[in-house]
């Protein structure tokens, strides 16, 4: 994971505590989702974000109110990080009417207009032109917003990504292409699927600047995010962040993960874990005590448990819901 390290000098205690809390919320939420899947409460596909938490938490710290985000099917972390409620996300995972999509989207398809979260898309790579389109709308409307468009190292081999790079550069669209490189496209490693070692360098062919970022270091992610946001917001067009990260769990809940060793996963967990990294900074810098962190852990656990209860108790959608929201009614 060759990527630059950033100085940690300019980070406040409050910020470190915030990062810790946000990343821990995603991890505990995902662990609970995995548990509910095992109990049969969540069906269909379920792609967990465990290991990659620093990516969305770091970038959200670089975003302003009104900035947009769109991502693929591994989307639970993005929703929590942009402020969507754990209850609504978990209830959507269990397919209940209290979910963000009234139980009709499931794990991969959730949206929140209020939080400017535009999905949750299940077709690998399809969210990339959509993200550029959101940026196109912002440029058209002249509101100086930027759009974070997340996709994986696997999606980076879809043709529409490069169609989008071309138009985003041609039209100076304020879009940040965030490649979450967790090194495996489902079961295929980057070496076996991708001709370039550094995916962000593909932007060079279109004149799009970019950089590789250590995705296990939330401070490095935030710093790179700020560079990208400043570039886009100043009207200079798109920017690429290739964030080198790692997922600890399988591609989905049904992945036996035979394509990598347990030792490989264990090594990253022990040496690079993003939450442990912030925990160390907080404790060694004497910003807080073990007891302070335990209190946070308890609070997070309570939020997650409450979301699981909500997701179990929320009713199934009525059968009639099969036939609603297919067409929008024209305004009178």
């Amino acid at each position, binding site marked *: 994971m060759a990527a630059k390290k950033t100085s940690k000098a300019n980070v406040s205690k409050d910020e470190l505590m915030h990062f810790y809390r946000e990343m821990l919320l995603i991890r505990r939420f995902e662990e609970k989702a995995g548990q509910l899947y095992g109990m049969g409460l969540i069906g269909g596909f379920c792609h967990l974000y465990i290991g990659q938490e620093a990516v969305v938490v770091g970038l959200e710290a670089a975003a302003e109110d009104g900035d947009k985000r769109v991502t693929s099917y591994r989307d639970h972390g993005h929703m929590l990080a942009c402020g969507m409620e754990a209850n609504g996300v978990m209830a959507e995972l269990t397919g209940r009417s209290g979910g963000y*999509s009234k139980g009709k*989207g499931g794990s991969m398809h959730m*949206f*929140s207009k209020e939080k400017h979260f535009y999905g949750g898309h299940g077709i690998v790579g*399809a969210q990339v*032109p*959509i993200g550029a389109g959101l940026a196109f709308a*912002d440029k058209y409307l002249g509101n100086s917003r930027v759009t974070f468009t997340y996709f994986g190292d696997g999606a980076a081999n879809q043709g529409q990504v490069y*169609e989008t790079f071309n138009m985003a550069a041609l039209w100076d669209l304020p879009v940040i292409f965030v490649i979450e490189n967790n090194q495996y496209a489902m079961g295929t490693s980057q070496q076996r699927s991708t001709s370039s070692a550094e995916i962000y360098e593909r932007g060079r062919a279109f004149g799009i600047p970019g950089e590789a970022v250590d995705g296990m270091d939330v401070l490095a992610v935030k710093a790179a995010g700020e560079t990208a946001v400043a570039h886009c917001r100043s009207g200079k067009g798109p920017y690429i962040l290739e964030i080198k990260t790692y997922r600890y769990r399988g591609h989905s809940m049904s992945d036996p993960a035979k394509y990598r060793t347990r030792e490989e996963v264990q090594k990253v967990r022990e040496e690079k874990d993003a939450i442990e990294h912030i925990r160390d900074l907080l404790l060694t810098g004497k910003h807080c005590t073990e007891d302070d962190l335990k209190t946070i852990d308890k609070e997070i656990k309570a939020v997650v448990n409450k979301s699981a209860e909500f997701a179990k108790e929320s009713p199934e959608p009525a059968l009639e819901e099969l036939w609603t*929201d297919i067409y929008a009614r024209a305004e009178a």
Partner: protein
Amino acid sequence: MAIEILMPALSPTMEEGTLAKWLVAEGDKVSSGDILAEIETDKATMEFEAVDEGIIGKLLIAEGTAAIAVNSAIAILLEDGESLSDAAPTATPSSVSHASLATKVSLPVTAHAPKQGNIAEQDLPEGTTFKTQTVREAIRDAMSEEMRRDETVYLMGEEVAEYQGAYKISQGMLDEFGSKRVIDTPITEHGFAGIAVGASFGGLKPIVEFMTFNFAMQAMDQIINSAAKTLYMSGGQMGAPMVFRGPNGAAARVGAQHSQDYAAWYAHIPGLKVIQPYSAADAKGLLKSAIRDPNPVIFLENEILYGQSFEVPDLADYTVPLGKARIWREGNDITLS
């Protein structure tokens, strides 16, 4: 041996044209590649080049003559030393009858008589007058009127702006609305369809022109998985208010890859509305309604109809409701609608 220069077909659907201007005079020597005349088709003014070399013996058709059938003789080309009288046997203008052209399409009413359809059945204001318009002009007017009415409506597609439309649908729109709202895209259907879907999520109302719906196959995933399904999968929170439009179905002699009719395909996708108008009045009124509709609408046009004229109600805001059938002709035993 004198050669007859014939009125050329300059598009797959051209049956006749106007000889706008001669660029040579009788007695001029011409070589292969010299420009002989400017010819107006229903889409554009095109330059017509000489194929053979020789001397212009006679211009058979005067400048400004309209409705000259394809393959009619328009000039006589003489070889060096040959005189017009030598060429006498062929000097009478010949013309190939339309019926022998494979491109001839049989339409229910003669091609040039303006067709009114059954507009009278609708609730038009008393005293409504009609104007004769081609389908091409009606589609352009529908888009322009809606773009004047709503700042968030914009047009994007291949060759829609500077080229004025591959089929000249968007003629004049770049001048009126500028390059912010009439946008030439690269040849990248999947990409620009996806960008338009994203723009619709972001508050705009895109009109996406496909040069033909055959090319929309490249964009099928974005049309179906992103545009049509998002309203449902977001529990009604957000959808794609947009129009995908362009020529569809049979054209003339363009082969199977340019002739498919996709109406039935799209009609099977929940979330899409599908429109396939015949007359210019329906094209105008339905396209205006499609642009205002909060759903993704597939608006299927037909290249052969673009140049056909119909009577269109001369109203400031003529719309035709979606989803309501028009009865073109009542049957004795059964009426389809």
